[in-house]
């Protein structure tokens, strides 16, 4: 099955999906949200 490719293509697609998702998760964690969330009290400057 692996030799013929069905599992290779399927698992390849799933692995890419997981890799991009995990990368996106960490990228979102590292973002500076202060400009987007100006409504948050800690970002309010009087």
């Amino acid at each position, binding site marked *: 099955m692996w030799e013929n490719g069905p599992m290779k293509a399927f698992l390849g697609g799933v692995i890419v999906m997981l890799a991009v*998702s995990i990368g*996106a998760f960490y990228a979102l964690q590292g973002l500076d949200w202060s400009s987007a969330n100006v409504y948050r009290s800690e970002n309010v400057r009087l």
Partner: protein
Amino acid sequence: MGDRDARRRAFAAVLSLLLLLPLAGPGPFAAAALAQVPPPEALKESPVGGAVPGGVLGTTSDAELWRSLRRGITGTVTIPDKKAAQLIQSEGDNWRALRNGPLSVYGVRFLAGVIVLLAVFFLIRGRVRIEHGRAGVTITRFNTVERMGHWLIASSFIILALTGLNLLYGRYFLPDLIGAEAFALITRYGKLAHNTVAFAFMLGIAWVFVAWVRHNLPSRADIGWLLRGGGIFVRGVHPPAARFNAGQKIVFWLVVLGGLSLSLSGWALIFPFTTHMFSGTFAAVNAVLGTDLPTALTPVQEQQLSQLWHAIVALGLTAVVIAHIYIGTLGMEGAFDAMGSGEVDLNWAREHHSLWVKQEEERMARKAERSGGRVFPAE
């Protein structure tokens, strides 16, 4: 006795005087209080037609103030977030009513309707078989890179659809089914997965677009294919089709354009208040169609429209994908091989993609001529 009676009468008279005195007219304290009541002219100008006890708000009542706030009156603020100038955004009521009302109700009816239609079609038509039986010879339909792109977009869409449907409908039945705590847990992590897997979906859209766009441009054969219903309604009918038939082309463009639209509205939801897509879109629509759609949308209205549009497109695309999964698995014999192994039976290919098979055979013949021998499809 006479003196005693006289004293009683005098005491009663003094007591009566003390009791009746306040009723005789305004005293000094009462006069001071009345002095604070606005003059009759002011009362006539009052929007509520009366004064407020204490005069705290002048002639404007609390009810009037709260009514204005409730209707979405906007003031001014000096903090960076100008949205804070509006305490109550009344359009939020419309958004919530639409989301929890017609959108949810018609959405679930639509999905259920599609599933019922497919079930009825399956009961009537049955599985579309390879009419001439399997040839035992296969032809390569999709290579590994193409199938990887398909499974990338497929796996991400299934996760997005399930977690998205949970956000829209989960609350109505899952807490009773699995408990409130379990529902809260899967919803929390489902939302997290939705926001991150979305980027894999975006990559998948780009992937399949690059891989297949040249095969999905409209052609003359598509008209004949559509007029004959793709041959799936009547046995023995096989309208000619190239590598992608008209039905697959429709699915391709719905997925690409719908996926792009989902990605844009999803981006607006992941990064709130950073985009103004609906204002721009409405302005463009107004310029082209001459409509009068609102273009001065507040950031909150932008978010609400993004959410509604995201849900509508997602429900539509989910229906398309359900039909796609049906015809690719249960509905048609031999179809899954195209995305499974990538090798399809030659008879299946001749029945459903005759023009493509002809092209492939000509290509292989040319290749054989160049190499001085014959090349057969894979077995």
